[in-house]
């Protein structure tokens, strides 16, 4: 007995050590050998909720049926956690063969050799047909001269508003795309809502609190958020003007204070009935309406110039990994996702508007929320600008910083000029 106990424990340690040893000496990476009968398995990462996962799995089933030699194995996470998952895998030298990419990341991943240049697989007789892309999306997915991604969908910024609340307050919503309302006029109407509801609902959520509003306004002024080279496309003066304006509207009460956003989960006061309008991607209207418990209409964004400022934003893009041994198969899958009408039929507008003319009109639309988005997209199609250059390396965190600075301003902790200085100083650190 006295001799059993120690040997058992020694054995345990030895076992663990041996197990670990074999695990680590068997290095050289997991084998990606081609399966029986020449079957290739593509690993595929995307983000979304359970509903989207079901739709995408249906698309995969159709693809596998049409391409019996290719299997697609998907993995997914919610958007906020998708990025660390993908970037860790990429950093570990193990990116998936095919992945969904947000527009904010393509420069970062594209410039550092993570994403394959699909230019070699695009064109007549090649795997991907990109000639079908809707015209405003032609350049989306290009980083300098390399095609690192293909758009899977597009959305546009819209003005979401609760028509009933606006009507009750006697406020006039912005009317047509060809006769947009000026910002000052719009804010007068918004103020009516705030007054009518006794500040229970503000006219609008402050658009200066995130990059969406800043970018829209800069584009209306003929500037842009990011230049081709990945620098900020506007000056300190531009930002001072914009911050000065929105802060004035906030003081008047047309725009909600920052506390309203912070007390709403998950940061959408429109869903918690604390504001009656906001700037948002058009495909979000359905979801927000459901949480709000009343219908949201899609209106045209106010502008003081001849430019609407809105553009075709790729909602999601598809990329292949540069290191993937199966880039050709990956390219075939990407082509299937962007061009096959069955995909469009399955996805509807879950991801956004279909990216190609070959998929346009494929989905039978019965859902009124989807109809609404389609109607809006149709109405703004003429004013839609092409996709602007992607954000710089570090652009994603500069957006977070913009929000932090804007909050400091709207909490009246710093002046407009100080806020602008803080932002540009941080930009220098981040973009260096």
């Amino acid at each position, binding site marked *: 007995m006295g001799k059993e106990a*120690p040997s058992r424990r020694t054995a345990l340690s030895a076992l*663990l050590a041996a197990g670990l040893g074999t695990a680590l000496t068997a290095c050289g990476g997991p084998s990606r050998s081609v399966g029986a009968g020449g079957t290739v398995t593509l690993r595929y990462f995307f983000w979304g909720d359970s509903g989207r996962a079901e739709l995408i799995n249906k698309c995969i089933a159709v693809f596998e049926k049409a391409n019996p030699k290719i299997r697609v194995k998907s993995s997914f996470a919610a958007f906020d956690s998708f*990025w660390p998952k993908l970037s860790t895998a990429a950093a570990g030298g193990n990116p998936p063969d095919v992945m969904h990419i947000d527009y904010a990341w393509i420069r970062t991943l594209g410039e*550092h050799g993570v994403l394959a240049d699909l230019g070699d697989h695009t064109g007549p007789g090649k795997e991907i047909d990109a000639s079908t892309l809707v015209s405003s999306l032609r350049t989306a997915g290009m980083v300098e001269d390399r095609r690192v991604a293909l758009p899977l969908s597009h959305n546009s910024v819209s003005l979401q508003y609760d028509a009933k609340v606006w009507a009750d307050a006697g406020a006039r919503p912005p009317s047509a795309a060809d006769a947009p309302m000026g910002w000052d006029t719009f804010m007068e109407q918004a103020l009516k809502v705030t007054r009518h509801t006794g500040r229970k609902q503000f006219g609008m959520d402050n658009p200066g609190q995130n990059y969406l509003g800043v970018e829209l306004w800069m584009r209306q002024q003929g500037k842009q958020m990011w230049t081709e080279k990945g620098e900020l496309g506007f000056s300190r003066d531009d930002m001072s003007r914009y911050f000065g304006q929105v802060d004035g509207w906030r003081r008047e009460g047309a725009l909600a204070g920052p*506390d309203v956003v912070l007390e709403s989960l998950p940061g959408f006061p429109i869903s918690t009935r604390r504001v009656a309008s906001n700037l948002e991607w058009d495909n979000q209207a359905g979801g927000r309406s459901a949480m709000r418990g009343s219908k949201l209409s899609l209106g045209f964004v106010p502008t003081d110039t001849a430019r609407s400022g809105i553009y075709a934003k790729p909602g999601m893009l598809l990329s292949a990994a540069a290191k993937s041994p199966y880039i050709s198969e990956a390219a075939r899958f990407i082509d299937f996702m962007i061009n096959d009408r069955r995909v469009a039929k399955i996805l509807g507008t879950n991801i956004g508007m279909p990216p190609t003319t070959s998929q346009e009109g494929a989905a039978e639309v019965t859902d009124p929320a989807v109809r609404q988005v389609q109607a809006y997209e149709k109405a703004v199609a003429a004013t839609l600008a092409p996709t602007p250059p992607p954000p710089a390396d*570090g652009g994603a*965190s500069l957006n977070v910083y913009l*929000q932090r600075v804007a*909050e400091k301003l709207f909490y009246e902790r710093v002046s407009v000029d100080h806020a602008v200085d803080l932002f540009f100083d*941080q930009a220098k650190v981040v973009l260096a």
Partner: protein
Amino acid sequence: MASTTTTDAAIPRARRGDAPSAEPAKRRGRAGDRSAYVFLTPWMIGAALLTIAPMLFSLYMSFTDYNLFDAPRWIGLDNYRRLLFDDPEVRDTVGVTLLYVVVATPLKLAAALGVALLLNTRRKGRNFYRAAFYMPSLIGASVGAAIVWRLLFSTGSVVDGFLGAFGVHTGGWISDPDWSLMSLVALSVWQFGAPMVIFLAALQQIPRDLYEAAEIDGAGPWRRFVSVTVPMLSPVIFFNLVLEMVHAFQMFNSAFVLSNGTGGPAGSTHVYSMYLYELGFNDFRMGYAAALTWVLLLVVGVITAVLFKTSGRWVHYAGEEK
């Protein structure tokens, strides 16, 4: 097998030693070493592979410009220079983090010890109470907890109304840059379950006769607490203090989830670890993030070392009487 024979061999020597209170290792020399290393084998493998190697790699990274995808480029002390002198975000996040550590650690320990003492009883239903008091800690810093916390500390909520009834009008903590950090402190204190369980387990270890002896000596409840409970509990007080402090320094989840990843309002909950995370995973400035990690490690390490050094004065181990 080898260790079996060595321990067996060690025993006759131990028998020869006539002072049982003497340090066994001194008598047993190398043999003691051997069995200690056997006991420590799993830990040594784990620490070397899963912690020390990655740590050394991150130390190397901290002297480089490394974006995860290209080869690291050696830049010497640049990262350290920048974080010490040129980065306003470091200054801001250090301020927020220190405030959190100083407020949250003692409050959480006090709550945990208070409830543990309350529950260290033989009264009926103690099992129920122990489970019930642990409930808040089961929820963790989940999305569910974040929703509740937001609602609890919003303007016009239960907490606001309750404080208002006492004439304290703070409004919603969650949306007030001066109070938002306190709502995170409240969340941490509310989840006092882990140190409480540790305190309870230690309270059970205190021999009853010590209290009986103190009572015979005429000590009242307070006296018994100070002269029996506190010294007997001191190893776990020390343990909880170190751990809760370290956790407070590393606080990330609750700030991230409650502020939707922004550290808001106006950066008031933007803690150091969140900045680290942003640098590493959003900006891919891994080299710089590694330098920040090492500075954090150094600071917390020094504080912990000081705690260990001074612990000899107030921490009492029953198994190591002098």
